[in-house]
């Protein structure tokens, strides 16, 4: 899936990193340039276009009224979906989400869900019958490495940007007032920080080329209160415990920078 990197590139990139340098001039713990715009899609209830380096994702939040899941009748429904568009990379194929796309959606979803970012109870309308359903759709436009951090940042921004209609219940009927839009009920903020293991170093925000040669990666979701709320190892080589702990320190430090990009509440 990953582009195959020639052995010589692998060596030169690794050697550089062993010296604390990177091919694009960054420090090991430095993000590429980040840009984040919200409110870019008027037809979406909330939206964000996020770029980390050349990686680019467009994210839209839509709401609709629907049935709750039978096992959680009193809370709203929240779903995260992503599409690795064939325009984003020469080897992305059209079709149903593959395992990479599913992992991306699910890790992003878990950070938001398990971090209790949305107050899903406030999205119930008629308990057991009607609730708000919130869809986060992530459209991967350009793939130049580190989708996870871009997705988490963009999804958080799109949620903060979102305004949904006011819905009230009268006589068991839901009345939806599009004239009075209100923000989504959010408890907290979360973003994610990914480190790749190359040689025996951890490097922040791996580029596409670095992803091609990394041994493993660890992605850590952090809330603005500092709590770790999700974690996902990827890649076909192991980590040692000390590396994980070091990664957590770096993530807790670096996510502070990421939170700065989010809209001020």
């Amino acid at each position, binding site marked *: 899936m990953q582009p195959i990197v020639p052995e010589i590139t692998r060596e030169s990139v690794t050697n550089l990193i062993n010296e604390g340098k990177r091919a694009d001039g960054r420090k090991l713990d430095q993000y590429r340039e980040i840009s984040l715009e919200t409110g*870019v*899609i*008027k*037809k*979406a209830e909330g*939206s964000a276009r996020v770029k980390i380096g*050349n990686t*680019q994702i*467009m994210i*839209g*939040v*839509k709401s*609709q009224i629907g049935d709750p899941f039978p096992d959680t009748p009193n809370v709203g429904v929240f779903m995260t*979906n992503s*599409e690795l*568009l*064939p*325009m*984003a*990379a*020469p080897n992305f194929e*059209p079709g*149903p989400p593959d395992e990479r796309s599913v992992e991306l959606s699910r890790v992003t979803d878990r950070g938001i869900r398990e971090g209790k970012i949305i107050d899903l109870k406030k999205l119930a309308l008629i308990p057991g019958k009607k609730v708000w359903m919130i*869809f986060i*759709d992530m*459209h991967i*436009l*350009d*793939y*130049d490495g580190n989708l996870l951090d871009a997705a988490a940042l963009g999804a958080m921004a799109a949620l903060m940007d979102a305004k949904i209609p006011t819905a009230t219940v009268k006589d068991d009927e839901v009345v939806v007032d599009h004239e009075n839009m209100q923000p989504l009920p959010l408890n907290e903020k979360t973003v994610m920080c990914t480190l790749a293991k190359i040689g025996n170093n951890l490097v922040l925000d791996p580029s596409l080329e670095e992803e091609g040669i990394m041994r493993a990666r660890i992605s850590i979701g952090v809330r603005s209160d500092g709590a770790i709320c999700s974690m996902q190892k990827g890649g076909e080589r192991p980590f040692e415990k000390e590396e994980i702990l070091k990664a957590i320190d770096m993530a807790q430090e670096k996510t502070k920078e990421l939170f700065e990009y989010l809209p001020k509440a």
Partner: protein
Amino acid sequence: MITIITNRDLEAKNSERPDGRAYNELRPLKIEAGVLERADGSAYLEFGDNKVLAAVYGPREFHIRRFLKPNMAVLRCRYNMAPFSVEDRKRPGPDRRSLEISKLTSEALSPAVFLEKFPRSSIDVFIEVLQAEGGTRCAGITAASVALADAGIPMRDMVVACAAGKANGQVIMDLSEWEDKEGEADVPVAIMPRTGEITLLQMDGQLTKDEFEQALDLAKEGCMKISEEQKKAIKNRYGGD
């Protein structure tokens, strides 16, 4: 890199269109070439509230043996709408409408491309509608042409598309979403501007032959205006005069 057309001052104001445009007035248009890193060519287009991204890969080896052509490239298109691009969230993935538009887009672009130069290859055009507000198939074709040029694909001409139609009894250029839905007819057209030859033509609604001809002429007139903006986008990207 961004160009805005508001040709509101070009014509007399005899309009009763909901957005106040004259019968032969385009919506504001921006085109930017070369907006993506990975794709061989790309273009971003805003046309009214339409926001469309097009990307091109190729010519590249075509690995589906059954569909390759021994004497020319195959130009494949995928027109896709983002789930958040429309009022009610669209389920991801192709539907019948997008399959048809993908086919028509491929047929609209193919006449302009020197496909015969690249036997056994594919040229892949991907169109993503990020926000839809009427006329996305034309917007997609227009953007895709710029992306093809940005990818350096040799072409006879840069295909350009624009719809015309009829609403409130009036034949008009470039229907908005409301005019498309509520109007009497819609005529999307793509042309190769150098020769005026038509590479996309559809119609639905109800028109007399005369009305159709007026609509076709208006659509071609719209195409010619948009074509200038395509050229500017390429110039802005690559310089030249």
